[in-house]
């Protein structure tokens, strides 16, 4: 099911595991490629990702809510206290979501359309109640996030990502949401926390000594 295109920079074949990918990187010349219909446009060169200790890598597979998924891309973010990965995952039915891995604490979320407008950036504060799909979510953490780099296929371009605010929201029943203020209006990602064991991951990285 993988489609192949030609890198406009070096001519190497660039494979797409996900038909709706908007941005990818050429694995040979490391050009950042943005897709316009059938054409690929080179918009830059990928920066080296800092070393990280995630057990997940591109093409790691797993199961979430009885649906199989594969990791096709990643965005690396940093904040004041460390970094984490948002792994772009694609399910068998081509639906895509995000597997977040912060120091081996895992959560899966999906882009959601809020029924009501989300609180503006200057109105969001820890403790604030936000109703999402009728359920109460509470803002627990506000984080200044810095985009560090990416790999693989993404559903959007990372060109305009530098530093932005996110608000983490939690519930009484292990669901969570993130309001991402990198765009206006802000984006909403909603999902729930999960665990390494629950995800039944395969094709993981190995750790020397483990």
């Amino acid at each position, binding site marked *: 099911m993988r489609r192949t295109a030609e890198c406009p920079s070096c001519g190497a074949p660039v*494979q797409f595991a996900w038909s709706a990918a908007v941005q990818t990187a050429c694995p040979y010349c490391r050009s950042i490629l943005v897709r316009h219909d059938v054409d690929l446009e080179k918009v830059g060169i990928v920066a080296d990702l*800092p*070393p*990280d*200790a995630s*057990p997940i*890598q*591109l*093409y790691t597979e797993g199961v979430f809510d009885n649906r199989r998924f594969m990791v096709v891309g990643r965005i690396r973010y940093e904040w004041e*206290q*460390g970094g984490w990965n948002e792994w772009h995952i694609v399910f068998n039915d081509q639906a895509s979501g995000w597997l977040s891995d912060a*120091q*081996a*604490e895992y*959560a899966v979320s999906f882009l959601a359309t809020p029924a009501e407008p989300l609180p503006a950036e200057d109105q969001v504060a*820890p403790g604030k109640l936000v109703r999402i799909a009728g359920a109460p979510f*509470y803002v*627990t*953490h506000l984080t200044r996030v810095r985009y560090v780099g990416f790999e693989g296929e993404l559903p959007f371009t990372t060109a305009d990502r530098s530093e932005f605010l996110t608000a983490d929201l*939690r*519930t*009484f*029943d*292990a669901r*969570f949401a993130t309001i991402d203020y990198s765009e206006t209006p802000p984006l909403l990602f909603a999902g729930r*926390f999960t*665990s*390494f*064991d629950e995800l039944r991951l395969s*094709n*993981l*990285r*190995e*750790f*020397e*000594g*483990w």
Partner: protein
Amino acid sequence: MVTANRVPAPAPLACPSCGGRIELRGFAHTRTAVCIQCCSVLDASTAGLKVIQRFDEAVRVRPLIPLGSRGKLQGKTWEVIGFQVRTIRVEGIPYSWHEYLLFNPYAGFRYLTHYDGHWNFVATVRSLPAFTSVRGRKAVVFEGRTYAHFQSAKATTTFVMGEFPWAVRVGETVTADDYVSPPWVLSSEQDGKEINWSQGVYVPGKEIWQAFGLPGSPPAAHGVYANQPNPHTEKMRRAWRTFGVLLALWLAAVVLHLATSSNQELFRRSYRFAANSPGEHSFVTEPFSVPRTGNVKVEIRTDLDNNWAYFNMALLAEDGSRGFDFGREISYYHGRDSEGSWSEGSRSESAMLARVPAGRYYLRIEPEMDPQAAFSSAAGMSMNYEIIVRHDTPRLWIFFLALPLLLISPVLHSFRAMGLESARWSESDYGTIAGVSGDDE
């Protein structure tokens, strides 16, 4: 495109301050590493290894589980990569506990806490606990369990070694609150900006020793810890469950006993007795047969009124082979006084002969009445009475004797359970003698 990407073991660092070697175990998670030789806290997230803090060597503590130890807890292998001592003050007296940071590259980070021989295996939680109150005290509900607030204190980090995925500092202070529902404890830490929650489960020291293969035996546990399971609670529950089962059996036995006791009437006859009648007062009844070996109950019903009688009796086998002697005193008095009417005694009495072999029997009866009274009021010294003999009569007193015996174990365990709970809570913010905790040496 499947790549078996192998992450190399982290290279040791050289302390920029003393040149000492610092082993690393947390891969790229490590943000802070401690040089234990010179007690420097280093920023390991940058190549420069900036020294962010020097702390006093005098606070050095040797962890009971050495850094680098691996052990299996809850089905996963964990490596000890960090260690810190945290201290609270209650009425000026410092109390310290130890925290071991555990790491597994796939499952992440956990903690082991240790205080006075009591251990907890702790994980951060990401659902929000919901605040509530139980009997007027603070409490939280988490995953369907209610946790009662135990203690609130300012906890200060007083010693660190190893490595941490966050920035640690000696002297850092948070407000720590513990909520308990043994064997669980839910803890919140507030640093002014955020609340972080974690959940611990009580683990006996010997399980920790086993898990990490440590030599010797774990330090003895003193006192009752906040979330230490109450062994008596389970014993108490079991004892009450057993009591319930025994009570049901008891009731069934009573019902069975009542149902199977024929209580068959063998003999009934009315007599009149006059104390002043001449001659021998003793007589024998006509014989009756006891069909099966078992109990025989002889009932005497009189019409005594402010009077007294004594019955000297014997159940005698017709063939003379055996006899059962017994006597019964019957008195019944009543009247009125300033406090109203009163009565004392009863007009009837019975005698139970526990085991009478089958056969034909008769009764010898010798009634007596007060000769003094008979002398003074001769006409009144008489009575009518009836003798009823039954056999295979239900005897419930044995059952009622057994009932309190059944209660001994559950009541005993309940008292023990309550004793342990009161010891537990005496150490909390709600204890009657909060802060006085030197009673367990």
